[in-house]
């Protein structure tokens, strides 16, 4: 009896305010989807950071003949003696885990496999490639200190911290995430206001009913519940839509860039994000309904 009555009231309310209900659903769906995308980017970035921080190395490039780098000017290629001294110096540093030497042939092979510019490939010869020491650190955080201590050693052309390269990628993803979260916050505000307005309209439409309910002694829960449930249902539908959007984003965007990412975003994370955003969406709707109700429905 009770449940029947309340659900029929909810249904009437949603139908009477169909356009507003749709507005709420769409706003919640888009807002929660953006929030979800932001969270997904966030977890992708932290996964990548974890993945790469194990692998980042310092590359200590050595002078070749005619190298344009400042330290190599007015001198020839690095000598065998210098290489030996350098290797000992690097090995002697406390933060270094291991050192690997990459000769010109290896460097050329790597270059061939990663470079796609055919013109560049055709004019580059193995002798143009710099030799280098690949230095793996015990603690990746020390990279900057180690790099600066190796810069300026005789025979060193420059030191590249791979972390710096990754940082620019992460920086871009951070920006993307912040934009998504920023828009999500605006959408949440819009959703809250819309729900407030919907509840107000709904309360106005049903003022006769609620007036009589008050008069005959219906309890506050009985009077308020249909309004809160309206918000809850709108929020739930919006949340389900945002879940669908997030699955689409995962399949079509995250999967397609996965090849570059090396640390794929798993479905378990996506499921967690969807659950979280849906819960937030529903919570916002219910709270907004409840708060506006207090203002427009005297009980």
């Amino acid at each position, binding site marked *: *009896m009770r449940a029947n009555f309340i659900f029929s009231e909810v249904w009437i309310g949603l139908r009477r305010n169909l356009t507003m209900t749709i507005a709420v659903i769409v706003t919640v769906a888009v807002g929660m989807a953006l929030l979800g995308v932001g969270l997904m980017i966030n977890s992708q970035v932290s996964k990548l950071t974890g993945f790469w921080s194990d692998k980042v190395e310092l590359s200590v490039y050595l002078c070749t003949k005619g190298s344009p780098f400042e330290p190599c000017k007015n001198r020839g290629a690095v000598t065998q003696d210098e290489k030996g001294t350098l290797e000992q110096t690097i090995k002697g540093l406390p933060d270094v885990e291991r050192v690997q030497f990459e000769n010109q042939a290896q460097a050329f092979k790597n270059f061939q496999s990663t470079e796609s510019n055919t013109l560049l490939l055709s004019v580059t010869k193995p002798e143009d490639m710099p030799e280098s020491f690949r230095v793996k650190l015990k603690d990746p955080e020390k990279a900057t200190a180690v790099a600066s201590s190796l810069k300026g050693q005789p025979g060193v052309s420059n030191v590249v911290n791979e972390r710096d390269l990754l940082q620019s990628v992460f920086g871009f993803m951070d920006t993307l995430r912040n934009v998504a979260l920023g828009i999500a916050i605006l959408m949440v505000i819009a959703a809250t206001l819309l729900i407030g307005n919907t509840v107000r309209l709904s309360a106005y439409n049903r003022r*006769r009913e609620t*007036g009589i309910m008050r*008069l*005959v*002694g219906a*309890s506050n829960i009985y009077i308020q519940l249909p309004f809160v449930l309206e918000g809850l249902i709108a929020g739930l539908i919006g949340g389900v839509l945002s879940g669908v959007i997030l699955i689409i984003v995962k399949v079509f965007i995250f999967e397609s860039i996965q090849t570059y990412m090396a640390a794929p975003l798993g479905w378990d994370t996506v499921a967690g994000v969807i659950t979280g955003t849906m819960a937030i969406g529903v919570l916002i709707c219910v709270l907004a309904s409840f708060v506006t109700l207090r203002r427009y429905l005297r009980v």
Partner: protein
Amino acid sequence: MIHLDNVTKVYANQNRPALDHVSVDVDKGEFVFLVGPSGSGKSTFLRLVLKEERPNSGSIHVAGKDLSKLSNFKVPHLRRRIGCVFQDFRLLPNKNVYENVAFALEVIGKPRRFIRKVVPEVIELVGLEGKAHRMPEELSGGEQQRVAMARAFVNRPMILLADEPTGNIDPATSIGIMKVLDRINRTGTTVLMATHDAAIVDSMRKRVVELEDGKIVRDQSRGVYGQAY
């Protein structure tokens, strides 16, 4: 049943009190007319009994409960024991007679079986048998007021408050309305009716409480509306 002791009510932004040190006792089963010109405090009196308003001073007891000690949470339970009828009927236009009466029971969570049993009984009591499936717009004013009375009485309240129930109804039809109120009163329900209608008050010969500028100027059993009018 209704006990007002030295009650004063001043609305915000008004310097003159709507009720000024009013004390009244209404016993169980009584029929009381509340008379007086517009603005004399009749509606305020009824609103105070329903706890729609709070008095500025004085105490009100309704059905054995001290209203000042009644938490907001319990106000709905007080109102279940009080039926209300108004000048403007306040029916739901999209529900028929039966549904309008049943609504009052549905919203306080009564079981459907109970509703099916008592609603037709009350519709018969107010004299609307055979019209249960009419919509309010298909009914005359008098019939609409009978629906409102059925709704007010369906939960068998201890008190029935009627705020100018005949205000929108012609004199001939009003007699029928008063007969229904009298019938409800005879079941043991206390009836408190605010009215302007001198003919009705005179014909019923019930207790009359007259208010003027928020003060009780007359309280007379088996009274009439008053010579001044």
